């Protein structure tokens, strides 16, 4: 096994990787920025190195500095986690050139799949269905011609994009040019390359993805799908497996094709192939060449430790199981707990954790990097924990998640916990009939608001009653500090 592993990330995923590495007997190194000096991943790692920050740019993106640390400390392997440098072939190349093992796919594969037009073509060639789409847009005429062929509405997508960034919708020819200009500008800003292509827009699809693992000897297995349709602002909120709409045969068929795609591009390590599902058609979207936030759903369902497997594969070990060893047991789901206000369009609410109680019990897992007294920095994303549960059936898994939410308490700022309570009350969610527009379609946020108002009225009524029956200055008891500071609103 490796003697050392540096985690080029922060938050819960850094901790997840540290745990896996420790179990394999690998010494772990964390890196951190000044705002993260009290972060849990810093405390848990065997050693932690502070990054210098330049101009407020997050140090976790600083390739040169991280590379220098690896060299100085003689680090043997680096795990990028998700986000930050996880899809940077430049970072991977630089490490590999110096003899440091990058725990992820080879940089050539990251580069190849990072081109969405090329990856569409590769997917089509192995027999996957791709949505109608264009080549890279060359000029205005080309765009108009292709959009007419595909038929409106179309999406303008960044060729080197991903994660829902740099995407614009055009309903007609009038909207097309400005959509292209906007998407291109966004892509240029976010990814440094402004090329775009067109793809047919699908109304209210489901989002389904397949997890794969590939070792360095050409062996590839898939670990089934995850359904990630519950989203807000194109960001996933709840993921589950198995999907209620993928049959056993369909899973086998798509699973075989994604493994074929992986072998075709000489894929190594963990990866995810994303699809959109519409009217029974499973349409290829993109490949994510990294560990994903929602990987625990698959771990719960299959009993396999994906992160440990990643490390072993990178070390040059054979996959420790074959396709026929993969068994899917029961139903698993993950709830992304975010520091955000669901009634204010999921606006982020960074603040200090005043109280924190984690849920427990059989098949209840809570991956987090927070603790009581920790202040959530405002410069990183709002994910503060992942509640993952599993049970024999989907119905039972929902009940288990509901009960876990009753135990999970994070006080100090608004979180999206009440949103999930509302989601689990929804009959259509319970029936499994969901899409990426589910929250809007079911008016969940309005229902949630009403329920929170109901609770507030009950609490207020008690407060009034308490004040009437107690001494006048007992109202002081109600001045629970903390949240107003966190919300920071002045009246």
């Amino acid at each position, binding site marked *: 096994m490796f003697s050392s592993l540096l985690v080029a990330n922060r938050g819960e995923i850094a901790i997840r990787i540290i745990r896996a590495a420790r179990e394999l007997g690998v010494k772990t190194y964390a890196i951190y920025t000044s705002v993260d000096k009290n972060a849990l991943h810093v405390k848990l790692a065997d050693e932690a190195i502070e990054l210098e920050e330049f101009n407020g740019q997050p140090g976790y993106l600083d390739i040169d500095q991280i590379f220098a640390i690896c060299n100085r400390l003689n680090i043997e392997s680096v795990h990028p986690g998700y986000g930050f440098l996880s899809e940077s072939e430049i970072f991977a190349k630089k490490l590999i050139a110096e003899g440091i093992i990058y725990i992820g796919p080879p940089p050539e594969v990251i580069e190849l799949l990072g081109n969405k037009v090329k990856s569409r073509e590769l997917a089509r060639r192995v027999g996957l269905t791709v949505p109608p789409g264009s080549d890279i847009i060359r000029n205005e005429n080309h765009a108009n011609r292709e959009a007419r062929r595909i038929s409106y509405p179309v999406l303008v997508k960044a060729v080197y994009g991903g994660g829902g960034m740099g995407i614009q919708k055009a309903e007609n020819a009038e909207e097309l040019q400005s959509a292209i200009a906007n998407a291109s500008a966004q892509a240029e800003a976010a990814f440094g390359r402004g090329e775009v292509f067109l793809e047919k827009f699908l109304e209210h699809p489901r989002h389904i993805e397949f997890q794969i693992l590939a070792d360095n000897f050409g062996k590839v297995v898939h670990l089934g799908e995850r359904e990630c349709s519950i989203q807000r602002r194109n960001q996933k909120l709840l993921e589950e497996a198995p999907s209620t709409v993928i049959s056993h045969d369909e899973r086998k068929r798509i699973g075989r094709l994604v493994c074929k795609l992986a072998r075709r591009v000489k894929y190594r390590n963990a990866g995810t192939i994303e699809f959109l599902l519409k009217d029974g058609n499973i349409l290829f979207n993109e490949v994510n060449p990294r560990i994903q936030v929602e990987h625990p759903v698959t771990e719960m369902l299959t009993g396999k430790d994906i992160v440990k497997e990643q490390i072993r594969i990178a070390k040059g070990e054979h996959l420790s199981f074959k396709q026929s060893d993969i068994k899917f047991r029961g139903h698993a789901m993950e709830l992304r707990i975010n520091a955000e206000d669901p009634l204010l369009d999921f606006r982020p609410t960074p603040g200090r954790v005043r109280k924190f109680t984690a849920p427990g019990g059989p098949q209840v897992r809570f991956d987090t990097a927070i603790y009581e007294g920790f202040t959530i920095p405002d*410069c*990183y994303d709002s994910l503060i924990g992942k509640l993952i549960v599993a049970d024999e059936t989907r119905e039972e898994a929902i009940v288990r998640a509901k009960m876990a939410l009753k135990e999970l308490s994070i006080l100090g700022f608004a979180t999206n916990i*009440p949103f999930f309570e509302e989601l689990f009350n929804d009959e259509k969610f319970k029936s499994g009939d969901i899409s990426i527009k589910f929250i809007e379609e079911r008016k969940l946020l309005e229902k949630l608001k009403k329920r929170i108002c109901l*609770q507030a009225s009950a*609490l207020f*009524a008690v407060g009034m009653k308490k004040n009437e029956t107690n001494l006048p200055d007992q109202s002081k008891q109600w001045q629970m500090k903390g949240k107003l500071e966190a919300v920071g609103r002045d009246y």
Partner: protein
Amino acid sequence: MENKYKITLNGIDLDLERTAEKIIVENYSFTPEVIYNGKFYKVFVSGHEFKIEFKDNAIFLNGKEIDFDFRHSPSIQMRKGAQAKRQADIKAAIPGKIVDVKVNLGDVVSDQQCLLILESMKMRNEILSPIDGVVDKILVNTGDQVLARQLMIKIKPIKTEKE
């Protein structure tokens, strides 16, 4: 006696108004009934039942600790129409970084016009003007880190003909 309150429930802000018969929260009306059994409170409202307890200086709703706070609103409510006369101080509701200031000193701005963009937790938030007015002061620059409640911009109302 003013009967308007500002409520905060688990970090979520709500407006509440109390009348003789009912409690109105954000346009929803409720008539909660409270029973105290000497140990805890039971509330019956709109077919729902809540158990509310006070223990160790903490509040529990159905057995789960919550943050709850209410206080009187300032008596003059900032409402449309009345707004035009008041100056607006644009403060940061959340800590973050100013990524774009969209207005200049002396600009005439309209109600709900975007003044600046505040990035927090990788999300860009448009900060809008609450009134029609003129940009009176700009206290931040692009790239600045701001704290919660930090004053960023002052908007002066436009003098109406009456005045």
